[in-house]
């Protein structure tokens, strides 16, 4: 699947502060899948959802250069999230028949003041939260034995019984209980760390 080298290479030249550049990297990494999933939930196909994610990230990125000149007092991460939220809601609620052909530009995604939309807000929050969990899961999973992770995956994510997991993995029931509890603890800690880094 396509990644976003364009965003990194061409647009990041506009970001002057290295700290902001790093913040943007993290932001894009998290928001790309968030926007992608929001779009998929609304029935878009894979390629279209990727395009949409690209479109929103591009819109946000294109505004960074001008932001740095004027808004140094606002925390960059917070600004990014606010701008992204507006762009996502605008792009998801875009009603094509309201517009004249060819009139609207990518900048409008940012300029338009979106209507208050608590449903979309909740969805963005949910997908953001999901992304944090998915990232945490990848981190935890990377440090442990595959079978240990499977014990957690079977009994928690797939919501199957402890007995089934014990049979499938050929382990004692006690081992399954121990494994899934320890992973749950690490997962929760990792989620908290990621949240802190992003706040």
């Amino acid at each position, binding site marked *: *699947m396509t990644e976003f080298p364009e965003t990194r290479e061409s647009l990041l030249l506009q970001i002057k502060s290295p700290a902001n550049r790093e913040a943007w990297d993290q932001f894009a990494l998290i928001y790309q899948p968030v926007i992608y999933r929001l779009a998929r939930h609304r029935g878009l196909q894979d390629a279209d959802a990727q395009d949409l994610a690209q479109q929103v990230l591009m819109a946000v990125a294109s505004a960074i250069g001008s932001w740095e000149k004027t808004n140094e007092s606002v925390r960059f991460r917070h600004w990014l999230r606010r701008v992204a939220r507006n762009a996502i809601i605008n792009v998801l609620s875009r009603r094509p028949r309201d517009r004249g052909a060819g009139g609207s530009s990518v900048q409008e995604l940012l300029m338009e003041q979106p209507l208050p939309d608590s449903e979309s807000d909740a969805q963005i929050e949910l997908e953001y939260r999901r992304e944090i*969990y998915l990232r945490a899961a990848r981190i935890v999973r990377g440090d442990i034995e595959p079978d240990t992770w499977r014990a957690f995956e079977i009994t928690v994510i797939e919501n199957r019984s402890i007995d089934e997991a014990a049979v499938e993995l050929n382990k*004692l029931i006690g081992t399954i209980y121990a494994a899934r509890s320890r992973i749950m603890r690490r997962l929760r800690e990792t989620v908290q760390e990621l949240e802190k880094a992003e706040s």
Partner: protein
Amino acid sequence: MNLNVRTISCDPDRFESFLSGELSDTEERELTLHLNTCEHCRRTLEQQAAEPGAWQEAENLLKPLGFDSPAIDENSDSGLLKYPTRQPLQIQSVLDALRPTDDPEMLGRLGGYEVSGVVGAGGMGVVLKAVDKSLDRTVAIKVMAPHLASSGAARKRFAREAKAAAAVLHPNVIAIHSVSNDESLPYLVMPYMRGTSLQKRLDREGPLSLLEILRIGSQIAAGLAAAHAQGLVHRDIKPANILLEDGVERVTITDFGLARAVDDATITHSGVIAGTPQYMSPEQARLPNRLAVKPWNSAATCSASAACCTPSVPAAHRFEQNRRTASCDASSTKSRLAFANSIRISPNGFAGSLTG
């Protein structure tokens, strides 16, 4: 190993050390054996690991969504693997939902159809190859993905696809034999076509000859014209949705899943994004005003069909290497001219019909 031996007594203080990985191997083994039998300690350990809400949240947020997550940046700090594709799971869950058949050659039964194989899987569902016993003909059955079958919006979209495609009777538009929307898995039955998609053909063989481009392009245009005459806009014309039948020179437009009746107000109000957002290149991002997000109308669909043919043009005559960028550019007025220039070598009528 004797599972009934109680090696240690219930000791909640050990749980904290265990969870943070501070117990020795022997102590861990003892604890594990104890957990084998002690209901009470299992519960206590789980409560200490994380509050019930966190367990629930992990289950809710980490379970598969039924569609691929986008690729994970391999260079990212976590350095972990890409998420595996969900498609094999999706196919399996559709096959599991089939009813048993007496025919050993077949995979299962769906309605009056004997399923003999899987043709492919996409965003909305799985396409099966099957035999219609009563008419003794081979059909393709598009079955809605099980995870979508519970969603009202997805069912509506599925029904719309059936209605849209069934409304158009044209040799270049996929026919709909029948629809079933009341079973647990909605499906629609279409003729089975032995062949490949334009996308696969381009991937495999590269650019097409001018004659092929004209043949395919004119048939797409004819099919779309028939749809437009019925007031339908396809909105998702792309090479993957163009079928090329083996043996006969026939082109068929499929997948009316995003089709919209020109006067259908319900969809514009439901928050569904109409159409394929244009792909942005870095150059375009620097010139934001060039980018127009246009509503889909019949003209836009025609542009898309022209864009479909873009990768079909031999590379030497293409103005862009990147196929997706080219598709986008071919959809914008300015670059339609560039596109026309790039294929100046071809007959005027052809360039005109693609870009007009």
